[in-house]
């Protein structure tokens, strides 16, 4: 059994209530930080822990915090990114739904470290029921004095606000999130300036993922060094993985970074192997935007080493033979899965979610979807594969925000590793969907 730090109390009934949470050691990090540590010391522990952002990019959290500008007399903000909308990712929901106080505790401790007097949780529109759970928990925390004026009798005060989004994926991009939080259209901002200098209402702001903020709790409780002992190299600590697809046991797992991918997919403790005795075909390891890898490359790197659940190991081989840990949305596909159809679904998503500010993403995502639709209709030509490749290359790196890349990478990776599937459809002029899904529901085919 690997060590668990975030959802270790999963089995405890009513852990979502303040009393039970507190009885199991909850809010200890707030006591420790506010009573015995300076904000700088908290930041120092986070630095030592090696914690990296769990929202997708994996940026070192301590470093991000230390970039926060601290001009005299200007408020600073901590904003929690709970917009979780990347297809395949549902770990933040799990954490907030079952352990709302873990997030609130993390928010208090992190806000103290950053010197924020007001902090925000921006939550995805479709998570309205999670919003209610959190709202209730926040009320409890206020009533018990964990939030509000002079927390624990210290001179630190914090108000925690929640804002519910309207269901746009783009509002997960941190600057679009800030725009939306300010009540504007959720368009990503042109950077620089970065939020650490000019974020919410033009003030210095840190935006962190739900899981990142929750991880601050064990880091402060046990010390950064203790946290850093878990994991491999620069991938320290534990990570929530939301596993979905053709596996026996889909769900959210907390694992120590460094677990072999093979063990994660096939062991009884985690995914429990491929469903219906089928063979593994491919995995999208970190949410829909990271490159898909075929079975042989997800289990072993190109050098033949076992692939591990770490930022480095999954990234080994760059995009030619590797992928990314991303947000931890682990999508497993069996031998009957059509990569082309999966790509069509992803691409349709990005087309739908593009904010429309910059030309390559606004126009390119729709164009790619239309071409992929031709494959699904069985009317595509072989030359369409090259055209798709060219379009994705012309989107990548030319956009305002990374949604452009998020749309381009899956297309590039599907063609890189599964080109033959595209060619076969183009040659046969027919798309045979043999997936389990389509057998269940014939008229779902686009």
């Amino acid at each position, binding site marked *: 059994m690997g060590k668990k730090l975030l959802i270790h109390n999963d089995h405890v009934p009513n852990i979502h209530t303040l009393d039970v949470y507190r009885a199991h050691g909850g809010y200890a990090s707030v006591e420790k930080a506010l009573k015995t540590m300076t904000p700088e010391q908290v930041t120092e522990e986070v630095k030592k822990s090696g914690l990296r952002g769990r929202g997708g990019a994996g940026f070192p959290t301590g470093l991000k915090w230390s970039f926060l500008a601290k001009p005299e007399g200007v408020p600073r903000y901590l904003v929690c990114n709970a917009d979780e909308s990347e297809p395949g990712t549902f770990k933040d929901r799990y954490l907030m739904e079952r352990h709302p106080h873990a997030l609130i505790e993390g928010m208090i401790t992190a806000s103290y470290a950053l010197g924020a007097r007001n902090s925000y949780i921006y939550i995805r529109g479709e998570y309205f029921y999670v919003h209610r759970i959190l709202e209730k928990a926040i009320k409890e925390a206020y009533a018990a004095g964990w939030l509000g004026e002079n927390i624990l009798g210290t001179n630190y005060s914090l108000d925690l606000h929640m804002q519910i989004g309207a269901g*746009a994926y*783009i509002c997960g991009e941190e600057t679009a999130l800030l725009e939306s939080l300010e009540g504007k*259209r959720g368009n990503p901002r*042109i950077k620089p300036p970065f939020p650490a200098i000019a974020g919410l209402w033009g003030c210095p702001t840190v935006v962190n993922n739900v899981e990142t903020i929750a991880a601050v709790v064990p880091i402060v409780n046990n010390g950064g060094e203790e946290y850093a002992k878990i994991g491999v190299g620069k991938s320290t600590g534990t990570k929530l993985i939301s596993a979905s697809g053709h596996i026996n046991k889909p769900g959210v797992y907390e694992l120590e970074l460094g677990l072999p991918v093979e063990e994660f997919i096939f062991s009884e403790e985690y995914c429990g192997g491929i469903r219906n005795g089928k063979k593994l075909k491919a995995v999208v390891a970190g949410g829909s935007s990271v490159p898909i890898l075929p079975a042989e490359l997800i289990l072993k790197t190109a050098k033949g080493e076992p692939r591990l659940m770490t930022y480095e190991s999954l990234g080994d081989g760059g995009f030619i033979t590797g992928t990314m840990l991303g947000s931890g949305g682990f999508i497993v596909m069996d031998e009957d899965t059509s990569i082309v159809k999966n790509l069509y679904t992803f691409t349709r998503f990005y*087309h*739908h*979610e*593009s*904010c*429309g*500010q*910059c*030309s*390559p993403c*606004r*126009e*390119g*995502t*729709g*164009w790619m979807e*239309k071409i992929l639709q031709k494959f699904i209709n069985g009317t595509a030509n072989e030359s369409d594969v090259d*055209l798709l490749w060219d379009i994705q*290359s*012309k*989107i990548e*790196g*030319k*956009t*305002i925000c990374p949604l452009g890349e998020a749309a381009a990478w899956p297309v590039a990776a599907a063609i890189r590793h599964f080109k033959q599937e595209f060619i076969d459809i183009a040659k046969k002029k027919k798309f045979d969907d043999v997936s389990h899904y389509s057998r269940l529901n014939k008229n779902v085919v686009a």
Partner: protein
Amino acid sequence: MKVTIDGIEIDVPKGTTILQAARMIGPKVAPPAMCYYTKLKTSGGYCRTCIVKVTKGSTANPTPMPKPVASCRTEVMDGMEVQNFTSPDLLEARKGVVEFLLINHPLDCPVCDQAGECHLQDLGYNNGSVKTRYEFKRREFDMIDIGKYIKLHMTRCIMCFRCVKVADQITNNRVHGVMHRGDAAEISTYIENVIENDFSGNVIDVCPVGALTDKTFRFKQRVWFTKPVEAHRKCDKCSGKVRLWFKGEDVLRVTARKDQWGEAEDFICNDCRFEHKRKSDWVIEGPSPISHHSVISQNQYEHLNEKEVEILKHQKALGFMNYDKRP
């Protein structure tokens, strides 16, 4: 600060963008810009046509930038080195951007009032392909009247957001904005609400394409058959400095004066633009300086300013005559 663009060095003040620095050097290095507009705050960064390659970040930190950057929104650093027309990869990337701008454009130039002074035509001509690779139905919208003077033909829009910035920054009572998302986004007045503002007409001048046109001029004449003249009048709302577009003795259109980069020198009021269409309303200053590359200069070579003609004559005498620059 010293910056080198396509091998040409220039000294610029701190805070200058790469695009501004390139424009200071001149057209031979200046990237095309479809959404940036000097007079509009927060404009630029959207269309991505002005991208350049930064091969050296600065003297202090020489690492190249990993991706092409929007030159209109990137400030120069001391010792920065930039490639624009000298980088084949960059030109290929820009060609991609131009293609994206064109795939959903109706290409109805033959019936578009903007033809001849359209920045998308110039951009396509200079950076695009001859053939389209897009085989699907193009996006279409219904036309909208923005008050009695302005027509919005959204189908032609390239989403540069300049008009939105004008509405935001020049006019009060903003009703003009963006609705919907992605490639379904559209410039809107929130259901045909009239922009009753003295300066609303400026959206026509900032629009790089034929999406916003002057209803008092629509379908009257191809621009290259009209003759631009600088003129002014006393106006208590704006500077009164305009450009009149004549056909014979008739003023067909009044616009702002545009500079070398196609940007308005002064925004003008609706009174001057729409309500003063008699020659006698104006004090004529003389012919407008129109680039001799422009189709508008057709049959109007006499408007080349004297110095330019002198240079060209001199070059001709030396045998340097460039074919397309012949007076």
